[in-house]
């Protein structure tokens, strides 16, 4: 596979700092040379991730890259976004791995944890020696996370957790689970070591999408944890939603990566593919598709970059992240479908990447706030009325 040099129609590189470009290019090279040669095999094996890459991912500093201290790189949010873009250019499963570890496990510990919790877990998670997972979604409560059934009850000086979590990335390989549960006075967050009695997992098989990623169910049957495992800064549902804003921000960038991979593959293919009367690139309908792709990628880049700058300036509202996630995943999915169209019959085999990205993006459209939920968040922002 030839090297990937990115898609930059409007010279947006000029708006990036040296370290933002360097971070992107370093991860880009890693994904091309180390990850992409492995992805096909892992996609063929349902629900597996190239775990042998974890030490190298950690060495690159990809876990919690925008957090500071505790062995984290301390990059700004634009550099972090570009890193997510490059990871998802490889596969949504690779970006999900880093998103969960950084935004959904390390971030809540960093933001809501005690010093002891930070010192115990963050260096281990940053170094990839410990893997984390995030337990919010349940079999019966997805978008309506506030309806969760999992309970946290006082048990002596500690807590007893009981419930089931579903669609949990890295659940069965995690050393620590961030578990959200309904306590006596509202939603509470806990760090649960996965070797505790009563904690069990089962992997979810038969996925058409995100096959290079491990998805599990977590079963907590009267799992006892000390109060020292509770995240004291996490008060109510806004704590897990705060984590999701971090992860959704990364997804808004990640989707651009998947879109760029599909666009680049399509451009390359149509220039080589001979059809009646010349190359496929010379057909009007082909060009219309490519123009749509390039225009939407460029708009998505501008959206993500502006949201990133606002995040770095501390002026971000979560509805802005909703717009970026909603739009960028939507156009990435359209671009992936269009690229697969252009690849014709070849587009359905896994020697080409468009269909892999396409089916991955169906998941990305659904998780971390579905497309429709983000529509309603924005709708409420505009009107002030929560729609039913």
């Amino acid at each position, binding site marked *: 596979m*030839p*090297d*990937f*040099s*990115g898609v*930059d129609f409007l*010279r947006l*590189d000029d708006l990036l700092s*040296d*370290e933002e*470009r*360097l*971070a992107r*290019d*370093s*991860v880009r*090279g*890693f994904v091309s040379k180390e990850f992409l040669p492995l992805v096909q095999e892992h996609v063929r094996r349902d629900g597996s991730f190239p775990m042998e890459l974890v030490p190298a991912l950690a*060495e*690159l*500093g*990809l876990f919690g*890259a925008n957090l500071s201290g505790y062995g984290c*790189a*301390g*990059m700004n949010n634009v*550099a972090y976004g570009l*890193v997510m873009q490059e990871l998802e250019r490889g596969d949504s499963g690779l970006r999900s791995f880093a998103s969960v570890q950084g935004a959904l496990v390390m971030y809540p510990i960093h933001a809501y944890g005690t010093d002891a919790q930070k010192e115990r877990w963050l260096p281990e998670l940053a170094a990839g020696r410990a893997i984390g997972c995030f337990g919010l979604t349940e079999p019966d409560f997805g978008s309506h996370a506030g309806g969760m059934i999992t309970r946290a009850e006082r048990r002596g000086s500690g807590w007893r957790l009981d419930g089931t979590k579903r669609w949990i990335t890295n659940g069965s390989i995690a050393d620590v689970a961030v578990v959200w549960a309904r306590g006596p006075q509202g939603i509470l967050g806990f760090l649960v070591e996965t070797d505790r009695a009563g904690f069990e997992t089962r992997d979810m098989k038969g996925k058409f999408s995100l096959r290079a990623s491990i998805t599990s169910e977590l079963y907590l049957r009267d799992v006892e944890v000390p109060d020292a495992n509770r995240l004291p800064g996490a008060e109510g549902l806004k704590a897990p939603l705060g984590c999701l804003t971090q992860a959704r921000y990364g997804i808004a960038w990640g989707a651009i990566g998947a879109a760029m991979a599909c666009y680049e593959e399509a451009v390359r293919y149509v220039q080589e593919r001979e059809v009646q009367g010349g190359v496929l690139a010379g057909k009007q309908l082909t060009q219309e598709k490519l123009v749509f792709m390039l225009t939407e990628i460029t708009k998505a880049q501008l959206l993500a970059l502006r949201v990133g700058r606002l995040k770095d300036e501390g002026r971000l509202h979560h509805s802005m992240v909703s717009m970026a996630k909603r739009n960028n995943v939507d156009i990435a999915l359209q671009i992936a479908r269009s690229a697969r169209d252009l690849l014709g019959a070849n587009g359905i085999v896994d020697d080409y990447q468009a269909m892999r990205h396409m089916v991955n993006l169906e998941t990305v459209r659904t998780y971390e706030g579905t497309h429709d939920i983000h529509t309603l968040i924005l709708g409420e922002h505009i009107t002030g009325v929560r729609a039913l």
Partner: protein
Amino acid sequence: MKIIVCLKQVPHQDARLDIRSDGAWIQEEGIKFEINTYDTYALEEALRIKDAAEAEVVVVSIGPDRVTQALRTALGMGADRAIHVKDPEAEASDAIGLAKILAAIVKAESPDLVIMGMMSDDGNFAAIAPMLAGLTDMPHTTAAVKVERSNGTLRIDREIEGGAREVVELRSPCVIAVQTGINQVRYASLKGIMAAKKKPFDVKSIADLGLGGQVGAAAVKVRIEKISPPVKGERAEILEGSTQEIADRLVGKIKELGLL
């Protein structure tokens, strides 16, 4: 120990190249650049020496503003200090002019080792290393595929005709030009990139190096007149038939050409 690594920034391997209107070079506006592949192996070799022993790695590059990226990448990978020679006159130099610029830096820095790629992906001259060695009166070797150090002596395996290897010993200070593939080049880590922001980064002009009038456009001995894309061949022959028939005819063709 001090090691100087000479880096050139070249167009990205995947960049679409268009020829400039005067026909003498490519249009550089809007394309992506990267560190010359050969030079990345030289940098990695220097960083490995640094990892194994106490060493300062100084990276040097000549070129316009964009070259900052190449040097910052090298600092992010672990180099300690960067020198950027930025001067329109420097860029207009031919190989001997560039070698003179590097020689001025080498004389000022007195390194124990100068290491670089044996040629550049774009120009393919393979001239700088031997010229620099000549100008600085240092021993040198090219096409290095293995570098071993012991007590001020370097033992180098170099690639020669037909895949054979020649082993040479050089005493320090010396110049080594490396072949690609001699090591596995590391990636700049995000922490390394952040740390690179604080590392010394010197920018020098031709006047700073005391080379006014000696290099640049007026002093060139070799000038690129014209570049052209490879001509598309008209003589391709598509073999048709069953796999067996195609294979038989292909073997026949290869034998015809005396290649088998």
